[in-house]
């Protein structure tokens, strides 16, 4: 047993109140992260609050995509389409063809993403896995090209002046300065609590973090319900599930729609923060990065995909020094990860168990475990 798993086992054995306190402390730490400016973690080349917000949107997207890829086992290579639908709904309602405030536009964006998910899923979910991948990839491109070519949606110039989330200017929070080597509270560099402005990105990060917590809660509830079990059955063996009375098509569609919802929600958050969106923000490559986040982290395990999203979005920002070589190094990292952690960084416990059983069977058959 490795030290990491030993530590995890000890953490699991702790009494419940201690666990709750630890989680709460961790939550506070996450919220305080942009103010702490921790050396090594903070990004010298880019605004740390902005980077954290980007990471948070990736985490949100990865959680949504995990429902589709990880739970229901449907390979979706066009997830950026839903992200774009969410962002553009806010943009169109709030700026291009109306002046709906951000907060009212978000539910509409989520519903719009849901509808697009059902519209795409209803005809296509009947085709088999690999075909679904190319159809969804096509969907992502169709959305982007429609955005580029439709003047009603702002065309290639995109939409600007998108309304920001409503906020209040309650009090100032100071940040911490490490330039002397020791932490000093820096009163000169403060963040106004919940002022959604242009320069200070930290409040957007807080908002995104709060949304992530809600989504995790939702994810937990759905995963451990009848629906979650139905997804698992469908993913493992669709025919067997159907025979056992699981309406697999309906559950796949549900996974698709829920995933789309969360994608739309993150798109709406992104639009509210950026204030400006254009088709360039929704390249096909982004879909591929999203899938990479889910698979690298460990599809089916929500903590795994969160870690995967952080890896995929944070490291390219952190290592801006290597500007030109970022993508190259990222590609190498993906290949190395694929070889050494084929189940993902944090695989679902079930997958680990299944693998152990497999190895035991192999050992029984062949006399030695496969390495």
């Amino acid at each position: 047993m490795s030290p990491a798993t030993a530590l995890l086992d000890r953490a699991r054995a702790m009494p419940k109140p201690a666990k709750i306190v630890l989680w709460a402390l961790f939550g506070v730490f996450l919220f305080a992260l942009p103010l702490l400016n921790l050396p090594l973690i903070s990004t010298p080349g880019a605004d740390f609050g902005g980077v954290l917000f980007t990471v948070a949107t990736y985490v949100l997207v990865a959680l949504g995509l995990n429902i589709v890829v990880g739970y229901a086992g449907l390979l979706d290579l066009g997830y950026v389409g839903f992200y774009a639908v969410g962002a553009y709904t806010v943009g169109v309602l709030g700026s291009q063809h109306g002046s709906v405030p951000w907060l009212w536009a978000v539910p509409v964006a989520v519903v719009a993403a849901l509808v697009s998910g059902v519209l795409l899923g209803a005809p296509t979910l009947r085709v088999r896995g690999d075909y679904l991948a190319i159809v969804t990839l096509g969907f992502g491109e169709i959305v982007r090209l429609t955005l580029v070519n439709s003047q009603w949606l702002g065309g290639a110039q995109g939409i600007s002046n998108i309304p920001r989330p409503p906020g209040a200017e309650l009090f100032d929070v100071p940040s911490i300065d490490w330039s002397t080597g020791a932490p000093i509270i820096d009163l000169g560099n403060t963040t106004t609590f919940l002022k959604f402005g242009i320069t200070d990105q930290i409040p957007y990060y807080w908002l995104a973090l709060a949304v992530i917590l809600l989504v995790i809660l939702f994810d937990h509830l759905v995963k451990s319900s009848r629906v979650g079990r139905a997804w698992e059955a469908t993913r493992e063996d669709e025919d067997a599930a159907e025979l056992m009375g699981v309406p697999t098509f309906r559950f796949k569609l549900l996974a698709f729609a829920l995933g789309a919802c969360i994608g739309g929600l993150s798109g709406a958050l992104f639009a509210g923060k950026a204030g400006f969106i254009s088709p360039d923000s929704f390249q096909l490559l982004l879909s591929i990065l999203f899938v990479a986040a889910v698979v690298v982290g460990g599809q089916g395990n929500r903590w795994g995909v969160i870690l995967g999203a952080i890896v995929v979005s944070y490291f390219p920002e952190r290592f801006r020094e290597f500007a030109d070589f970022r993508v190259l190094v990222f590609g190498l990292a993906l290949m190395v990860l694929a070889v050494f952690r084929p189940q993902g960084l944090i695989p679902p416990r079930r997958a680990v168990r299944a693998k152990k059983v497999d190895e035991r069977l192999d050992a029984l058959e062949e006399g030695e475990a496969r390495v």
Partner: protein
Amino acid sequence: MQYLIDNFFALTITGVTLGAVYALVALGYTLVYGVLRLINFAHSEVFMFGTFAALWVVMLLGGKGGASVGQVVFWVAMMFLAAMAMSGLIAILLERVAYRPLRKRHAPPLIALISAIGASFVLSETMGLRGKIAVWVGLDTTLAPYVGNARNNAGMPEIITPQPVFTIRDYAVTNVDIFVIIGAVAIMVLLDQFVKRSRLGRGIRAVAQDPESAALMGVNRDRVIQVTFLVGGVMAGAAAVFYMLKIGITRYDAGFILGVKAFTAAVLGGIGNLRGALLGGFVLGLAENYGSALVGTQWKDVVAFLLLVVILLFRPTGLLGESLGKARA
């Protein structure tokens, strides 16, 4: 509509030329899918390396427009040789580095996609950073014409001057068009015969049908897979030469869109089916051209993908169905 009718033959010829290139690249996807059941996402980069090999060999030999027939034939032959060798090599390397280690570890299928995405980034960025890499090894001045402006378009001299050979209703079919179409079809017929008749081809079909039984019957699976990648790479190399002759411009990221299109073509025809890839390529090339004539060039890609969705709705396994293994034995 009127535009489509007026330019019907022009659109048809360009569509078929484009479709030939799609079809050749699609063969690589289809072969690998048939044998391994995985989408070789990095195949587009194999094609891209082929375009550069074709370009460099022409630069090396000092190719230019308006040369004698003998010279042109020599240049084109060298282009094929260089591009096929380069693409084949990259494809084999890819299999060795990105796929074989995963197979040995019995990794879940989706992880191969991640490895392929990683490999795709590495390959296209290596090409995009070739200037910087040349500086490291101290060859940047000697190789300046080859590695300079690594992130911009690289254009090729027009070694075959397009000349009208015959006209169909106002549209002059050029020698380049004819060469690309006939050449591509000839290569595909060769491949079809190879898979159908040769010993290695039989191995490929056996592994595609049932890998375990094939292994029990003495087929060396690793070797068959390697050959499959090699053949796919060589096809991509041929496609790269036709692409450079017809379009003449390439870039470190030129593979991506073409790869997506070629994969679409493979799925359209029925992935794993060689004749399907051929048909899918031509259908896609034609549909794109007719579609863009009907609704505007900017909607070209939308038409291509919508067509794919519609066809999959009615024929969920593509136009000809999937059957590398079940191909007429």
